[in-house]
């Protein structure tokens, strides 16, 4: 498994030097950005068992922070770093507050709350015209370093790998193991002597900040930002990616992001052939239903159960013999 990941990573790293297709690079950059976003969502959904419908708010905060900083000040690296810092502080603060609310609100109540909170941010972005230029959004210039698509592609790749490694370590740390215990049985975790709320806040902040970083990269890749970054669609994309890829696996989020982005791309291209493909969202809906019905554990989850079963089978058979 690790070998495959390394080979793919090396391949992606070398790709821009051997194959010069601007379109593919841009598409892959998009995949990386959404991988980061989907992984941050997976930390909540797959590891801690928190269902949030408002994850787009962190994404949007990141995108708007970057956009506004780049528009208001000179597009230099210093300003870029300042924007990153602002994003981390803002998303950290908001996700801390949201995490606090998990104390009182469980499952779907929490989901509704996050939905309405992100709606609030959407309205804010629409109405605060002096800052955000409302619904139309605005374009901005980016630091020189990122104008080159290859550079930016590499940056996104590196950030994605870093986020993957950080989250891998995070979820395998003693704290991360407690998160999974919370997902399994919150009450029992409590009676083992863990302060469940602290862990939920930790997961929420971690996930929020990483989603903000994904938002930053998204804004830079488009050099444009409008209110769509706060839209429900963004959260739904993350949900779709993690579920198709396999919740609680991290790598599943990356695979899911790749699949969705590529499928999106190809389906829109097919629109020339038949008008139905312009409504590609219909297909996503169908895929989504099929996955939830037949592969509730997603691609990675299903694959790993299969290989696990193969390993276990001889042992199970032996037991059956004894029982028989």
């Amino acid at each position, binding site marked *: 498994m690790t070998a495959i990941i390394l080979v793919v990573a090396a391949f992606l790293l070398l790709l821009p030097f051997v194959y010069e297709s601007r379109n593919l690079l841009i598409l892959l950059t998009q995949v990386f950005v959404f991988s980061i976003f989907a992984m941050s969502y997976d930390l909540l959904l797959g590891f801690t068992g928190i269902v949030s419908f408002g994850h787009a708010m962190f994404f949007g905060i990141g995108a708007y922070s970057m956009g506004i900083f780049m528009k208001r000040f000179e597009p230099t690296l210093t300003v870029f770093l300042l924007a990153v810092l602002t994003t981390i502080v803002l998303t950290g603060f908001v996700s801390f507050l949201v995490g606090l609310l998990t104390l009182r609100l469980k499952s779907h109540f929490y989901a509704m709350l996050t939905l309405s909170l992100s709606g609030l941010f959407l309205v804010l972005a629409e109405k605060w015209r002096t800052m955000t230029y409302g619904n139309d959004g605005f374009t901005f210039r980016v630091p020189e370093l990122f104008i080159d698509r290859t550079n930016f592609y590499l940056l996104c790749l590196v950030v994605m790998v870093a986020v993957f490694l950080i989250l891998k370590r995070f979820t395998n*740390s003693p704290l991360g193991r407690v998160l999974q215990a919370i997902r399994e049985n919150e009450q029992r975790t409590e009676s083992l*002597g*863990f302060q469940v709320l602290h862990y939920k806040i930790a997961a929420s902040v971690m996930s929020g900040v990483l989603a903000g970083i994904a938002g930053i990269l998204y804004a830079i890749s488009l050099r444009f930002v409008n209110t769509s970054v706060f839209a429900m669609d963004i959260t739904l994309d993350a949900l779709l990616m993690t579920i198709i890829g396999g919740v609680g696996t991290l790598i599943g989020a990356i695979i899911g992001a790749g699949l969705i982005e590529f499928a999106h791309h190809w389906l829109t291209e097919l629109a020339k052939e038949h008008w139905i493909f312009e409504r590609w969202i219909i297909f996503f809906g169908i895929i989504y239903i099929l996955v939830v019905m037949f592969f509730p554990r997603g691609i990675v989850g299903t694959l790993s159960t299969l290989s696990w079963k193969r390993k276990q089978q001889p042992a199970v058979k032996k037991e059956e013999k004894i029982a028989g």
Partner: protein
Amino acid sequence: MSSLIETTDLSITFGGHTAVDAVSISVPEKHFKSIIGPNGAGKTTFFNLLSGQLTPTQGKIYYRGKDITKFSPTNRTRAGIGRSFQITNVFPNLTVLENVRLAVQSQAGIRYQMLFHYKKYRTFEEKALEWLRLVLLDDKKGSLASNLAHGEKRKLEIAMLLALETEVLLLDEPTAGMSLEEVPAILEVIKRIKEQGNRTIILIEHKMDMILDLSDSVMVLFNGRLLADGTPEEIMKNETVQSAYLGGLLDE
């Protein structure tokens, strides 16, 4: 007599129904106390009060002379009161070893470490294995908890509880819903714990004939009230107890 756990006039009322009615007990250290009583007598509710799942409407709970009535379940566990549940309550999609490892981790006070890999704490796994061995479950360490048989799950529960190394063990019907063949194994585990001699155990049990020889004292709850509290022999002889609860049992 120095008591480890003491309750005074402990009561809880749900609407108009008083589930636990002015129960005052005191349990000395290293004591094995059993709670018996018919269904609905308030045994589990009494446990919930002790472990903090419920807050009493009246009365106080003292642990080592300290008032813990307002403590949350988490804080009570940290203070030294661990409990098992009547309904099996484990982490279903984690392995058996991981279930116990989490408890060991909590006991070791490693709660917010997020930089190192959990395998760095190898001792946790070794300790968890020891606990599994004590409850005769070490051969199942790799399977998911949800794949265990009912009796095994109960053993796992007990292992998790033991791993917390709390002074007090509250065992809520450890043999509930178990087939008769499985019961001796659990009793064996409880006996082993008792033989270690460093825990205070409070046990709820229906099958009272099994626990009489284990218990130092037995208390009888009936309709939320403390009917009697004494050595197993005293309880067997006690007439009120016999008529209220044991009557049917002795006729057999």
